[in-house]
């Protein structure tokens, strides 16, 4: 599973000259990595109960993760923007 751990490290790579792992970047990495853990651990959600409006858990849980992962990506995006602005010394494009 070599591909998975690569993903969260990626946001740190663009700034090769300023190799800093800041707490903010750690949060970004976590936000991007969380969906992989949740979705690839199939055993955690491969069950019928509890159902939601008649839909087995397996289905509504994954649909719910569409929303959760979207929220996490939005957070990562906002933090990344802030990080970039801070790095460019507040210079807005």
């Amino acid at each position: 599973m070599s591909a998975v751990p690569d993903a969260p490290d990626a946001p740190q790579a663009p700034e090769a000259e300023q190799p800093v792992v800041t707490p903010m970047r750690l949060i970004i990495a976590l936000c991007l990595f969380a969906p992989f853990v949740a979705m690839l651990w199939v055993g955690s959600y491969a069950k019928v109960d509890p159902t939601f409006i008649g839909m087995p858990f397996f289905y509504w849980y994954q649909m719910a993760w569409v929303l959760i992962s979207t929220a996490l990506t939005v957070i990562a995006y906002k933090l990344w923007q802030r990080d970039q602005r801070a790095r460019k010394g507040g210079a807005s494009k």
Partner: protein
Amino acid sequence: MNDGVNGVALGVFIFFFVAVTAMGFLAARWRKAENENSLDEWGLGGRSFGTWVTWFLLGGDLYTAYTFVAVPAAIYAAGAAGFFAVPYTILVYPLIFTFLPRLWSVSHKHGYVTTADFVRGRFGSKGLSLAVAFTGLLATMPYIALQLVGIQAVLDVMGVGGGENTNWFIKDLPLLIAFGVLAAYTYSSGLRAPALIAFVKDTLIYIVIAVAIVYIPIKLGGFDEIFAAAGEKFSQINPATDKPVGALVPGEMGQWGYATLALGSALALFMYPHSITATLSSRSREVIRRNTTILPLYSLMLGLLALLGFMAIAAGVKVSNGQLAIPQLFENMFPDWFAGVAFAAIGIGALVPAAIMSIAAANLFTRNIYKDFLKPDATPAQETKVSKLVSLLVKVGALVFVLTMDKTVAINFQLLGGIWILQTFPALVGGLFTRWFHRWALIAGWAVGMIYGTAAAYGVASPTQKHFGGSSAEIPGIGEIGYIGLTAFVLNVVVTVVLTFVLRAAKAPDGIDETSPSDYTADAGDPGVKVELPPVTAGAPGGH
């Protein structure tokens, strides 16, 4: 089925089809630039698309008619296993968040049009670039063919597919017309045509899904009833395999397969040339990152759509060809006029990706085969001309493929295409982050992945097919059943890493890297990133 033509549905379908055809031709004038005779213009829409156009374009591109037909069809046939499409599309977005902006930047800086362009520039290797281009072409062709399968399914259900004994020409005439028209406006308008038509396509799709997901369950007595009916069907024993025909929830055995399929597909999606074409047509890095936060709306839609497979079971839809399950469900459940809208949505849903795919394939051929190997001094105008012609050829090829061969051939090849395209990941994504990999090691890794993947897929038998019966096989060393593409990918990476160590130790000559670290973070408007591409008249790139 096929009990006469459904006149109302057909009328609505034709109305929408004519409307998008007009749009396709008019698109050439939309945001027109000064210089039309460049590949940037025809093949990337002038690299000018903002957040929303990119959203529609990518959505129209990735969620194809075949997806709409095949995902619920898989659920209809086997249940839970088909739902992997949802985690798959969930994982795509965090993944591309990390690497696509880098690809955009470096491509913009150096004028790359295809992924193979980038690989050549980064590793200084025409051989590696050819391998990437070749894989892209190979994987895209059957994908285009499958779009035709999607249209055929709709035409069949509307009753215009003709019976078994109709003359083949009459039978295929509607399909020929649809593709002729598509080819014509792609030729004249380039990427602008699918970008504009994507608006119509997605609006229709969203309306149809919203209605279907409320209306059909009410008619069928709620999700309780639907899943009860589905559970009953899946618990029946298949006489051929002595196992239940499906499952509502994957058992222990199926979980590895489910997870590896989702991960492997997610890694592969943005290796496809058509995904990259749509990405590079956006006007800034920001557009791409912002899109990773709004594209998941399509995943939600896909999840709802997948549930239609269960509804088809509960509604008692009986089809011998699973591909027809959803069109047939619409025909049974909806009033005729709305069934027409739904069919139009699927039909147009095939045209948009088919257009983008043929453009992407044409760009690959022109840039990485024609210009690199056949005519190095080709002018931009010549490049554009070749691309336009190749986009026609590609479509004709796909048409011949579908009309002369069995549908399963197209599906087998598409399955292989996913495995193959994933093998370009180390060169492309690896190359975006590091120059450490040696170009020869990457070629070797690619070759190993391709050969293993093809051989493993050949060995998969299913009750109906001796070879290429599925995309999962036992993972050597682990013993679980997993996605072949991902196993091949891991092998590919291992070979690449080991050989890189060997080649570096042996001091094998490294190619010249024409990119520099700052190229990967450059954004439009930054100093040094010239807008070498002429600013479009409306919405100039500086406006963010």
